[in-house]
């Protein structure tokens, strides 16, 4: 199995894209720590689902925006699992992708930006700073950061969201530079509009159709699509790949 004897942490791993990634990694043999923010029942349900499929997982609550909570989570992982090889930074501050109701540039407050930055850059900082000492002990480790293709093609200008995800894109590269020498590969995934997820439920059919029309593959991205790329990036299949961002959007953006 691709991820035999590996331990993976998926932040925001209990639902949407995160849940798909959690399942995918567990199926490939990893022990998956499903991090969640609020819905314990849902996280446990996912763990049970993974276990029913023969995988192994553990749900741990932590608000990734909270430094102390993240440190506690990493400590828990160390105590219960001893090691950690893979981190998927997937959590983000809840965002409603609603093209009809998005905030215009003039209406945005700093709070809007701040909350997206907290959910992306700050979360990344918290998770990496707490997790790095553990990752640096491994012969090799993998970090995957979820960003968005909106960073490159802001078809709908969700300014605050794009700011947060752009920060991820920048950090993705600079982290890759510093961490390469430690055997830690850092890569990003930029999904296109991923449907169905809770965040994308407000993106109505007309917009979806418009996107599909421009997409070479003629369809939207599914959480499962993203999970496949995540599996590639956290496994040895992607050996010596770092600092990259893979767009999983049916070819809408071509880097």
């Amino acid at each position, binding site marked *: 199995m691709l991820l035999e004897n590996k331990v993976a942490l998926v932040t925001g791993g209990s639902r949407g894209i995160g849940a798909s990634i959690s399942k995918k990694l567990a199926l490939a043999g990893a022990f998956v720590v499903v991090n969640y923010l609020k819905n314990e029942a849902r996280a446990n349900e996912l763990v049970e689902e993974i276990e029913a499929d023969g995988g*192994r997982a553990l749900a741990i609550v932590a608000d990734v925006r909270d430094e102390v909570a993240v440190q506690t989570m990493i400590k828990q992982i160390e105590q219960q*699992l*001893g090691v950690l090889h893979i981190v998927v930074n997937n959590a983000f501050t809840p965002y409603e992708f609603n093209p009809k109701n998005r905030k215009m540039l003039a209406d945005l407050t700093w709070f809007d930006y701040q909350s997206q930055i907290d959910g992306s850059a700050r979360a990344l900082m918290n998770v990496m700073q707490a997790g790095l000492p553990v990752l640096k002990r491994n012969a090799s480790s993998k970090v995957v950061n979820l960003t968005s293709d909106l960073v490159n093609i802001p078809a709908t200008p969700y300014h605050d969201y794009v700011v947060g995800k752009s920060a991820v894109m920048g950090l993705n590269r600079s982290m890759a530079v510093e961490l390469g020498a430690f055997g830690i590969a850092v890569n990003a995934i930029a999904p296109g509009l991923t449907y169905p997820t809770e965040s994308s439920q407000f993106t109505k059919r007309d917009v979806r159709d418009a996107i599909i029309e421009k997409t070479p593959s003629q369809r939207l991205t599914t959480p499962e699509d993203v999970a496949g790329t995540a599996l590639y990036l956290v496994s040895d299949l992607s050996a010596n790949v770092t600092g990259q961002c893979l767009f999983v959007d049916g070819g809408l953006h071509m880097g």
Partner: protein
Amino acid sequence: MRNKTTEIQDKILTFIHESAEDTSKVAGGGHRFSNLALDVFSYQFQKNEPYRKLAMLKGKTPLTVRSWKDIPLMPIQAFKAVDLTTVGSPEPEDVFYSSGTTNPENKSKHYLSDLTVWNASMKVGFQKFVMGNRDKMTIFSLFPGEEENPNSSLSRYIDTAIDFFGTPGSQSFVQNGKIDYDGFVQALESAIQKEEEILIIGASFSYVHLLDWLKEQKKNWQLPKGSFLFDTGGFKGKSKEVGMEDLYAAMEESLGVKRNQILNMYGMTEISSQCYDDAIIKANAGEAPSYLKQTPDWVHVLVLDPETMKPLLDGEKGILAYYDLSNWESCVGILTEDMAIKTEAGFQLLGRAKGAEAKGCSIALDELLKVK
């Protein structure tokens, strides 16, 4: 805490006793062994701090381990460096120390707060592999008993054998660190006269001393039919260097036993069970022995590739890993320093790995240890 401790012992005792009644009862495709091994590991993970830390370093914790084969292995060297105990041992019922070295810091320590499981493991294994259908035998030991040699697991083992399986004349002939040859000869000749089946128990080096003495005295005997020699230990820089097969040949000559009347036992201070070859089992069944070591049902072994530490296929040479349910107080999985080959019929020990010499001009660790 007491409950958990009692509970885990009870489970193991049940397993051992059911194995004694009927091996097939506990076999069950190995699931029972595996499940109980995982229980024991979880228990030890909670209570044995060094073992927990080792498990964490290896990423093999009760959450991630799913089969007995994944249970982390405690290197046997660790028994010298650290106290490995689940109970915490202010007043252990017994501590076993390894013999050999004079420096107490280089002795292995195996703490036992309760000998119930150890006794059960010893007796059930001894009954099956040594006694067979017999209830009692005349046991003469060339290795000291506990009184003479406290804190030795082998001495306790021999005392237990004599107490439990020996006829009234059974005893150890070692006093003040010396074999009492006169007493031994007297007892032996009297037993031979009465045609009693005798079991002589000794460490390999005890036989070397005995054989030297017999040679000096120009004595030899023909042990009564049904008698056995029981040998354990091999040679680790003790006494003079003799190959095991040479030793057995000399034993055959001086004591009038056939090769298939010599049984070898594999045991260690750090574990609570023993493995035996099939000499007696096969002799009782009228079959030719393979001399391969047999594991009791509560012990499983693996042979690991020294490069990858992954299990090797049957027939390949590697390091012996020893999983012993009766080791509930320390570590269920132990990495020995013995090289072995495993087959379906049992495992064969091939001695310790030798230190490596440098190939170039840099002095290697092992050589430096030799000269220091």
